[in-house]
């Protein structure tokens, strides 16, 4: 090892070479004499190679180099090559150094991410400016992918009418869509359910007939680590709690005329959860098959319409409503959100809706 270190004293510093595929870079060190003890060309044990040189995150302000990055080493024709396991962090500087040898290092700064349009909040469900005080969740849509992090539960605030934050309202479980553009943000159910100690001790997050603001601050980071383009505030009023089953018998249908592509319109006495509705509800035609078409929601998710791809044939239709179709408080067509299973069951609830499109 002493011979090796002596040889390295006169060696050129490590060099960085770009790679066309991830991790995008490799680091090479030409060995004086071209050999490592006991190693021929090929894979070099990590622990042995890091004694020759390694790559670490470099903190310019503190002049400190971090521990060796994960990766693999190979000896190729007298050159020791390090390939990091993962891409380097954009905009960060890394130093390749040889332990015990001063002033023979090389630095590399990973390219910063290209400037991107600032991500913004583009939609929030429920869209209404009044919601039941036992609202279960918000669904936040962003214009671009966001950064997953537990910090979001401390960043997103619910404020009362005086601007005072409501204490710890969220269920701290990250629920992102696959592309990280949609966040499902639940209130802690223990503060929504009647009789749960958490609600008894802290109170419900929303009190009927009071005003609130949902504040998504700029400090929430997008996938590139940039803050949001601007703070987004949704102001709303809490109305009376709703603790009864969603009853499809109260839905009102506006039927299209046969032979047209007019939409079928369904209006609800209270807003529905649009994501669950889209998943749970399907329209079956006279042939018993799903009617092809497009779904959309009306103002404040209090109505829904279905526009078919082709003209409506005459016949009998069925709006098949799945058990988990719910309102904003989690009351489904099957049962209220809060139900004591030891109590007698509700009557078999009406769910599906049949209708006829006449000639």
């Amino acid at each position: 090892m002493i011979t090796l270190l002596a040889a390295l004293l006169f060696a050129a510093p490590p060099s960085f070479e770009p790679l066309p595929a991830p991790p995008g870079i490799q680091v090479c060190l030409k060995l004086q004499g071209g050999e490592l003890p006991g190693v021929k060309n090929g894979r070099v044990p990590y622990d042995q190679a890091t004694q020759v040189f390694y790559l670490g995150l470099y903190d310019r302000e503190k002049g400190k180099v971090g521990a060796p990055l994960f990766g693999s080493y190979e000896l190729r024709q007298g050159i020791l090559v390090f390939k990091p396991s993962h891409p380097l962090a954009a905009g960060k500087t890394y130093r390749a150094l040889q332990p015990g040898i001063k002033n023979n290092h090389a630095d590399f700064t990973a390219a910063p991410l290209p400037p991107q349009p600032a991500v913004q909040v583009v939609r929030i469900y429920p869209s209404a400016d009044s919601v039941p005080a036992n609202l279960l969740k918000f669904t936040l849509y962003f214009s671009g992918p966001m950064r997953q992090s537990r910090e979001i539960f401390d960043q997103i605030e619910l404020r009362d009418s005086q601007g005072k934050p409501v204490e710890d309202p969220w269920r701290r479980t990250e629920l992102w869509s696959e592309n990280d553009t949609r966040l499902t943000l639940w209130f802690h159910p223990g503060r929504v359910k009647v009789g749960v100690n958490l609600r008894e001790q802290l109170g419900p997050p929303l009190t009927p007939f009071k005003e609130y603001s949902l504040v998504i601050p700029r400090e929430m980071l997008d996938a590139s680590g940039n803050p949001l383009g601007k703070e987004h505030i949704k102001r709303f009023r809490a109305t009376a709690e709703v603790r009864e089953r969603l009853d499809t018998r109260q839905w009102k249908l506006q039927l299209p005329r046969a032979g047209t592509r007019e939409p079928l319109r369904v209006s609800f006495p209270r807003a529905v959860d649009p994501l669950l509705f889209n998943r749970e509800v399907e329209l079956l035609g006279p042939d018993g098959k799903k009617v092809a078409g497009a779904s959309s929601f009306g103002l404040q998710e209090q109505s829904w319409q279905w526009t078919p791809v082709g003209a409506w044939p005459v016949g009998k239709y069925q709006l098949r409503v799945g058990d988990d179709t719910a309102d904003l408080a989690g009351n489904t067509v099957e049962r209220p959100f809060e139900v004591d299973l030891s109590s007698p069951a509700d009557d078999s609830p009406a769910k599906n809706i049949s209708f006829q499109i006449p000639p």
Partner: protein
Amino acid sequence: MFSRMMILAALGLILASAKPAFSASLEQGKPAIKSIDVIAFQPGGFLLIGDGAAGQVVLVKTPESTGKKWTASIDNLKEKIADRLGVAVKDAEILHFTVDSSAATAYLAVRRLDTKSQHILTIDGQGKISEFSLDNVAYKTIPLPKGSKGAISKITDLAWTGDRLLVSGLANEEFGCKLFCIYQPLEKSSEVILTSAETYHVAHGKWETKAPMTVLMPYEENGKKYLVGAFSCTPLVKYPLESFQKDAKVKGQSVVELGSGNKPLHMFTYSRGDKSYVLINTFRFHHARKPFGPSPYWTARIDTSAIAEKDNINEKALRRLDAKGEPAGDQIKIITEFHGVQHMEKLDAANALVIQEDGKGVLTLKTLALP
């Protein structure tokens, strides 16, 4: 000795140690994993990875045991992990934790926030941090059925019971408890039971099916196998495994209530002399308002006699605190030495391996004697 073994067996400490059985060989290569929600170590050297985004569990064969004794204590753990990943400390998070006790090796699921990438790291008993690359491993993928109510999006916990795999999960859109029971040989054709269990929530005196189970563990009592699950706010519930049948309603017995405002994180059983216990750590939502210690993370030791309780269940379940808010008895005890423990697993008969925070966000990986 014989009587001690009998007692331990009766109280469930001799858990099934059968290795997962596979009728076909493992695949070799890189498993397609979308998210690493939870990890667990199982007999036979298998790491179980719960991947809710892809709706699957992945079993990965790990290297043979080295069997070295654990001697390390690693302070500033998060800084050291971030360093090895080559990112700023704020860009690294520890997601989950398990231990291969036979090799005295910790497995950590971590994520880089800047690239949304997730990684498995190992830390051996001498404190060496390595990456457990999934690029070329022997593995098996077990898909979880979507059922009629939509797919899960996150797996909250999983465990091998000796003859079946238990998995709990939750979905983005509905508040629900989804439990999967997958029978050996854990092939794609294996029978999978998807159910939602009925649970009596002691805190508000109601039977529910909707609350998601946050941690679970296999448990055996007098030769009968159970699943013990813990929920937020914070009942422990025992379900007989024999009740996990197709289309059957699974009904549990609530046996312990730890109190509201807590989310269970890890739990396991251990024995001390002729006694046996469950150790469970939790995160306290409203620590600032009503702290149980210097950290929102606190740990309780539960005498398994409470888990074995036959009469005082559900409405009469053992509560940690009485009506005056005082400790209700000595069957449940807060372990002050475990304050700040975010992750923990049993290392050996006398020690747990834990990741403990000091109240200022600094994490240390170390052993703590089982209380």
